[in-house]
């Protein structure tokens, strides 16, 4: 829970506990006997579509549902309030500023992956957009050919061969994996370290309040930039689709570097 005021935090916690309890206490109000279905798994001998290791599915489904309620009751009302009072032009500038700040994470992680050229590009982006781009409000770097390349510690771990581990749905943050959850913690720690070292608001006398404000703003902006809404597709198997897309996307993002992938492809004897 990145940034919610203490009152909302209490509300969330209550909701959270209530959901967990109902999850455990839910009894099947089944008064009639079950009759086996006409079609069952036994008939089909095929690989699973969209299969991802998910031993904690019951927990994950509870979290998925929790996030739906959290969005509905807390997060999205705040986000739409923000969208209502802020002109689109300003919203875009704010997103730009936060995206620019996250270049620090992109930069440290391209370094961790020893991607020289990419690190230089990302650093170039950060310097360009922080100066000419007025602290990230505008993105001249992309037009100079310095494209944004997202990196995080979960990707770094994947790059060095760490398996994603089981699928994990985090409260508020949403779809993740064991590896990526660890990555998220490391990135936050690095971020915190840099922030403490630089201490940009040290002399204001209010640096604590300011940093809470910045973090809250970041959470709101992140949700604002993310169009996904839990259960909105209405598709009964949405959970599996989201799980699958998250997993594949992460696998591709943290993929092997070019040379290794080419040699594996050649070994496997494909065209």
């Amino acid at each position, binding site marked *: 829970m990145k940034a919610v005021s203490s009152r909302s935090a209490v509300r969330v916690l209550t909701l959270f506990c209530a959901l967990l309890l109902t999850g455990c206490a839910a009894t099947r109000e089944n008064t009639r006997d079950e009759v086996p279905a006409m079609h069952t798994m036994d008939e089909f001998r095929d690989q699973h579509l969209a299969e991802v290791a998910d031993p904690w*599915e019951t927990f994950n489904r509870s979290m998925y549902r929790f996030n739906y309620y959290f969005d509905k009751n807390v997060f999205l009302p705040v986000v739409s309030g923000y969208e209502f009072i802020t002109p689109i032009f300003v919203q875009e500038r704010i997103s730009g500023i936060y995206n620019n700040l996250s270049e620090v994470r992109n930069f440290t992680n391209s370094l961790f992956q020893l991607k020289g050229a990419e690190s230089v590009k990302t650093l170039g982006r950060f310097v360009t957009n922080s100066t000419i781009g007025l602290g990230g409000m505008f993105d001249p770097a992309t037009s100079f050919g310095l494209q944004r390349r997202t990196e995080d510690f979960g990707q770094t771990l994947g790059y060095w061969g760490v398996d994603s581990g089981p699928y994990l749905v985090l409260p508020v943050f949403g779809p993740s994996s064991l590896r990526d959850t660890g990555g998220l913690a490391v990135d936050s720690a690095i971020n915190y370290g840099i922030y403490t070292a630089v201490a940009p608001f040290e002399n204001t006398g209010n640096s604590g309040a300011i940093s809470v404000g910045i973090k809250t703003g970041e959470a709101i902006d992140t949700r604002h930039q993310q169009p996904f809404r839990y259960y909105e597709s*209405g598709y009964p198997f949405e959970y*599996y689709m989201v799980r699958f897309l998250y997993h594949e996307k992460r696998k591709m993002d943290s993929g092997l570097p070019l040379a290794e992938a080419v040699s594996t492809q050649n070994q496997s004897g494909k065209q």
Partner: protein
Amino acid sequence: MIFLKLLLGTCLILLPLQSVAADDDYGYPIPGSYEASILGTPAKLMPELPVQIPMRKLMLNVFPERKKPPIFFYDQGLLCMFAYQKQRAPLVFLIAGTGAGAQSAKQMAMMKALYQAGFHVVTLPSPTTANFIISASQNHVPGDLTEDASDLYRVMEAAWNEVKGDVEVSSFHLGGYSQGAIQAAFVAKLDEERRVFNFRNVLMINPPVSVYASAAKFEALLQQIPGGAKKQGVFFNQMLRKFSEFYRTGNFVAINDDFLYAIYTGHLFSDDETAGLIGLTYRINLAGLIFASDVMTNSGYVVPKNRVLTPTDSLSDYFLVSTHLSFFDYFDEYFYPFFQKRRPGLTKRELIEAQSLRSIEGYLKSSPKFGLMTNENDFILSAEDLDYLKQLFGARAKIYPRGGHLGNLEYRDNMAYLVNFFKKTGGSHEGSQL
């Protein structure tokens, strides 16, 4: 299904204009039927549409008494979208195609284009979506055009009741694409009796002639993959491997325009494979329909009869079973028995024939309010079907040389045709006693 499309890229690719091979003056660039159907229209060939329009969600409670099973706890009513003008204006209802909701990319594009031209617009989900089956279908078994039409009509009335206090409407119009197009024809016919809307005109976009025959075409796409439809999981995983290997070796920055363009120009997927992926998308949609319908009717088709699923129960097995059932399985084992029980003496042939434009061809032929938009190479139509449509609609038909199944819908010429179709009757007249 939006997820697969996301994977394959929808409408974002930047195609070079020189790929226009044909010698006609139609500028839609993708010649292949399957490729066009998956890739849609390159962004720069779409008309310029407003980013944001005045619009709100309508959450329709069509059956207030209805109790929903715990597994569908999130279903709060039927989700429709409503875009509105400040002044008196004509209103267009748009019905989505199989598996698509009110907010699908195609619905939103048409909504914006019509809004820009001065219309109010209400987009409706397809009666084949789980949301519709749970919240808006009388009997929870979609696929019968007559019953789907009466469900849709009830929804349109509910939507109208919800908004009529806020807007002024000069006339009503109706449109739909794919399965939504053939449903629009049946809704228009029902409207001739019910007369709530008196639709001024009705546009059908890429309709099937027979739902059964077109479903068979989708099934055929999956039959040709190695091992047939029963090995769809193996096929899908192979395609996925290809996709991600291509991504890795190409050193792409992200799954973006450049990447999708490279997939297209690099012919990563063969024609058969592209077709197989379309067939699989169809099955994924059908699986949602089968599961939702089975839970709502407690028929014991894929879920054990009398089992009450909770929100945290795993649905993994049902997902696998449902995607392995074909349209024919659904029709023979579930759909036909359901209607046979309700209409004694009903033969399978009669039920199939009722799901076709031929069953109402007298009406379609005589009514001047219809318009048709489709493509020469729409793979859901046989050559015979296409001739039939040409002969049935004559000068009311607009047939483009390519575009596959709906691939060219968002192309600027097509969008202009759509807008003008409604404009020519909606703009000038004032009327309808409201």
